[in-house]
């Protein structure tokens, strides 16, 4: 039983991690928490479900279109909502993302509908038995996608010009500008990446946990908690945070109390923040002067 509970916890944690990475990428370049991110995840799942249920589209083209749509959405959010805002007025920018999130929810409700949908899993077949425990194939897709995305992100940030520019912006916005790196371009790429990863998370998640226009806030909070736990701005932190969160929830539900599983994982998060206010892997940011 313990083995199965740990396995389930880690796979759920992988979902949280996927969502958390989107928060972290945007945060490191724009220094705001994108409250609309949960809605990107929602949109990915909803568009995938819509294409597959209404238009009978096969899995992979539907997934590709859904993810592409989320990239475009994220780009629009940045260009129409945030690009011309005062960079230092963080709270106004956060409110814009909140408003955009509500807008996306409204759009999904009108154009796709209010039904709970379970689009098809990426590959057919029952759960896989792994030494006494089972894991659904879709969860393997999720874990695999997380690994591929992490590798891709690492390559991008450390081995390409664009990625190095983003790193520079995240370390020191001002100095990067002086070096001829465009913070705006970095922000655009960060948002598109967040749309890509969020949309992918949504399509991966929908077959196991359903797609519904109202799920964005729930997913967003889990992802935000994971990102904070690991330390905002660190993709590795997002993964660690997500896995810890998923594992804590699962073990608490299995051995302590399913009623208080969220409370226990959040108390753990608070305790970690009190010991390490910058999160587990986060770097201590200089305070505002």
């Amino acid at each position, binding site marked *: *039983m313990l083995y*199965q*509970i740990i396995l*389930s*916890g880690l*796979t*759920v944690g992988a*979902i949280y991690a996927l969502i958390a990475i989107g928060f972290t990428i945007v945060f490191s370049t724009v220094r705001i928490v994108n409250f609309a991110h949960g809605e990107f995840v929602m949109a990915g799942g909803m568009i995938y479900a819509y294409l597959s249920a209404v238009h009978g589209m096969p899995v992979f083209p539907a997934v590709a279109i859904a993810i592409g749509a989320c990239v475009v959405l994220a780009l629009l959010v940045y260009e129409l909502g945030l690009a011309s805002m005062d960079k230092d007025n963080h709270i106004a920018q956060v409110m814009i993302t909140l408003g955009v999130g509500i807008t996306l929810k409204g759009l999904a*409700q009108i154009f796709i509908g*209010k039904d*709970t949908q*379970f689009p098809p899993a990426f590959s057919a077949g*029952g*759960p896989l038995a792994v030494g006494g425990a*089972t894991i*659904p194939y879709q969860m393997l897709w999720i874990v695999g996608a997380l690994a591929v995305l992490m590798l891709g992100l690492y390559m991008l940030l450390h081995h390409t010009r664009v990625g190095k520019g983003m790193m520079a912006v995240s370390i020191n916005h001002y100095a990067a500008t002086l070096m001829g790196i465009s913070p705006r371009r970095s922000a655009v790429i960060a948002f598109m990446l967040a749309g890509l990863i969020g949309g992918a998370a949504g399509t991966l*998640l929908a077959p*196991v*946990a*359903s797609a*519904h226009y*109202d*799920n964005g806030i*729930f997913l967003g909070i889990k992802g935000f908690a994971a990102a904070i736990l690991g330390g905002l701005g660190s993709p590795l932190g997002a993964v660690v945070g997500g896995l810890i969160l998923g594992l804590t*929830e*699962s*073990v608490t*539900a*299995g051995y302590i109390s*399913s*009623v208080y599983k*969220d409370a226990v994982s959040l108390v753990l998060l608070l305790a970690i923040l009190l010991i390490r206010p910058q999160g587990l892997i986060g770097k201590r940011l200089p305070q505002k002067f």
Partner: protein
Amino acid sequence: MVSKHGLSSQLSRARLALAAVALAATMGVHAQDVIKIGAIYAASGPLSLMGVPEERGLRMKVDEINKAGGINGKKVELIVYDSEGNTAKAAQQARRLIESDKVLAILGPSSSGESLQILPIANESRIVLIAHAGTEKMTNPVTSWVFNTPPTDRVVAAHLLSVFKKRGITQLALMSAADGFGQSGANAVKELAPKYGVTVARHEEFNRTDPDMTAQVLKVKDSPAQAMLVWSSFPAPTIIAKNAAAVGYNKPMYNSYAAASKDLLVQAGPAAEGSFVSSMRLLAPDTLKAGDPLRTAVQKIYNDYRAKYNEQPATFVAHSVDAMSIVEAAIKKINGPVTRENLRASMETVTHAGGNGIFRLSPTSHGLDPESQSMLLMVARGGQWVADE
């Protein structure tokens, strides 16, 4: 060409005409020729699984009434607000319907919490409220102005527990959602279980939208319980069915009426096969016995809904269709002007065989009673719901 003067006089004439229409609308036409009915449904938000079918059912019933020439020759006008399942909003909307829209009666809201907040407002404002709440507190004790159409959670719980008793299930594992709906059902089951000789051996909770409930299912599997009862609206029942199949849970699974929907069978596929649900008859009217007293009423709602919306009705549809049917019957019985007070008095004389059961309304009964025959056990067999009693 219109001269400047001409245009403005035309405009003022138009304005005058508009004002006259508005005046007629507020004074004459509405008061005499139209029956205004207000409704509050959670058409969006976490309770939209109930609110959406309720609203559709009501619109269907009202269209039907109006196509047949209205009630006593008066058309019914509907004003529907979306409460999003938010109690504070629902209360505001009730006040709006009473004070600004001046409706004759209010249908809904969808949840117990919202309904309980509106209960005193309806009684103090002296307007008929026909709620769709699962809590027996709406009509027990009976208050003058408040009625309720769904079977209460206690009725559903009692039905399931009587099934368990009949089938020799004495150890039960309860899985309920951590929301108002799940909590209400879990309370009813826990409270009534001893009366039926049933022990709740495990009680686990989950968030309705959690992506995975394997840990809870494993705890249930590990317990001495002979059956699992899931009390939650979607998507959780689907996820639990899949998780249970994945970990090899092989004891019977029962669901509350929130999962009484084709969705469970489509979404969970083979994992749902053989699971039971306590449901209103609307889930599978064609499998009802020929002598079933509600068969015709249920079949009509089912067929009308399919014809209008091109999908199978959720069982919640009957909450609003029954409510509107009762209002229609009550208005027809009124001698004299159709006022809020006369409607209230007339409501208490209505007997109606509806989708949810047989209503025998009286000054001491404002909803279904234990003899209403509301619930039926259904089983998933071959991808279809089939009556199992």
